[in-house]
């Protein structure tokens, strides 16, 4: 039997507010599954119940009704936490520890010790590119560095499931791109990734399946391509097409009954892609200038 990485069945979470019988339903009869090996995005606006759902899966909160399971284990079971690596939204780490100490700390909490722990810490620091900052305290890290160390600690015990809470929030486009690349790599390596975000366009590029949650309820769920494709429309991008070719295509569409051209024009890049292009170009210029200096 193939078990789901995450299985949420009829999850309801109610919070009492104030005195008396006032309460807020944060999650209302939510059900979804995350298959092993896929990247699943739970998206929704702020206050939609994403964080609450994630905390129940992490075992930080108990469900009012329903259940949540991780690889068949109840989410409150401590064994379930062995399966999970969690990257929080903000750097919820001890600022008085250095990068290496942070990874050692979490490694020991997961039962890794001695030379194995030392090797693992070195490996993770290299993966996230923080070898030079390993001995610096987290209080002196930038936001991007904190995200990277957070990612490293989430992988310290080689979990099967990685939960990312708003992984690209507050990170610059270059950092966002790196995180997205890493998520894709994790997927290639066989990890299951469950991420929560409200940055829809960034999620779009990495997720296999998406759940859209709003006011505590799942509104839509399914494969990304199926959700976002506009039925009955086809997009085609041409390069170096002559006006004559374009006219021929327009005539062809007009001759087909029921078909029509919805929109034509030059496709636009995104500001994000432009930013990345500039950064990459600048990086290449610097590298070649350095090479010239070395040669001379």
């Amino acid at each position, binding site marked *: 039997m193939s078990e789901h990485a995450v299985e949420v069945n009829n999850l309801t979470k109610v919070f009492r507010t104030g005195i008396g019988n006032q309460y807020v339903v944060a999650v209302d009869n939510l059900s979804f599954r995350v298959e092993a090996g896929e990247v699943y995005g739970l998206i929704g606006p702020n206050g939609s119940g994403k964080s609450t759902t994630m905390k129940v899966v992490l075992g930080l909160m108990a469900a009012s009704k329903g259940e949540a399971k991780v690889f068949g284990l109840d989410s409150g079971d401590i064994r379930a936490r062995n399966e999970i690596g969690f990257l929080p939204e903000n750097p919820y780490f001890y600022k*008085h520890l250095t990068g290496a100490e942070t990874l050692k700390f979490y490694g020991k909490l997961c*039962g890794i010790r001695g030379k194995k722990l030392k090797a693992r810490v070195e490996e993770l620091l290299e993966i996230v590119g923080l070898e030079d900052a390993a001995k610096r305290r987290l209080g002196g890290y930038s936001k991007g560095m904190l995200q990277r160390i957070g990612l490293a600690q989430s992988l310290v015990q080689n979990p099967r499931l990685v939960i990312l809470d708003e992984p690209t929030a507050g990170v610059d486009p270059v950092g966002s791109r790196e995180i997205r690349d890493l998520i894709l790599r994790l997927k290639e390596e066989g990890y299951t990734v469950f991420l929560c975000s409200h940055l829809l366009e960034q999620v779009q590029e990495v997720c296999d399946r998406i759940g859209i949650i709003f006011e505590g309820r799942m509104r839509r769920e399914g494969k990304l391509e199926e959700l976002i494709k506009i039925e009955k429309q086809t997009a085609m991008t041409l390069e170096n097409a002559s006006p004559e070719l374009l006219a021929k295509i327009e005539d062809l569409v007009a001759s087909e009954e029921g078909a029509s051209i919805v929109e034509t024009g030059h496709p636009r890049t995104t500001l994000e892609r432009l930013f990345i292009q500039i950064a990459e170009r600048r990086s290449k210029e610097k590298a070649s200038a350095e090479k010239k200096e070395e040669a001379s």
Partner: protein
Amino acid sequence: MSDEAITPRAPGKKVPIFSVTRVWTIAMSTVTQLVRMKTFYFLLAFALLLLVVGNVSFASSPAQALSTLKKVSFGAIDLFAWLFAIVATALLIPRDIEDRTLYTILSKPVRRGEYLLGKLAGVLVVIGVSLAVMFVICSIMIIWKQVGYMADEQAGGGRKEDIAASLALIAKNGFRIELAAAAYASFLKAAVVAAVTILLSTFASSSLFTIIISILVFLVGHAHSMATDYWLRETDNSMAVQMLLKVFKIVIPNFQLFSFSEGIVAGAALAPGVLWQMTWLTAGYLVVFLFISLIAFVDKEF
């Protein structure tokens, strides 16, 4: 980033019911946190205080000067121990909750009881080390002054029997190895205070609230045995007052019992078995208060 391969590990590793390693890891992280908050700088202030008290004295005799030095220094040790226990412990859990560091810790396979025990152990390690250092500083100061006074007496001249009497009095008020038990008494008191503070911090909303309530509990814990002696014997007190005193006595630890360091410093002989009994009593308090803290903390939602 490099292209190092990451291999997901095999599923289903067993998690022990209780892991000393995890407790010790959290304890050492707590020690690091407190040390990097520069708490040990207090020891410099303590050494300075002893230098002042040791050299500026209004005592009428060397014996009394030594007695004053011992009382002030062990009083400072006691004060530091319980005050630090309250403040340090009160900062730990509420700060972890406010900073949400607790999320990342509890998202690992860490039991909540291990977390509480680790925090308490960390505070006690720092207090224990501090008290040991303070005791050494104190002992050096007392011995140094004692040797000086004895030399002055011998050089001062006078009848042999007078000199012998003075030397005996100086020795009586000077250093004794039993003074280590006085420092240990302060440690036991601090341990119970820390356990009470941990309990309060599991349901308190902020560090400040925890500190204030802990200090109040400590003062009441000291006062209620006095109050019991004074007021429960007076028959014209209302039933309400008597009930209230009895409730305090049952619910709040008797901190006055842990103040036996004063008697040792004053020169009382340590009866055999007292330290063992107090240690067992302290252990009882720690176990019960940690258990009760766990009741409050185990289902706490973050």
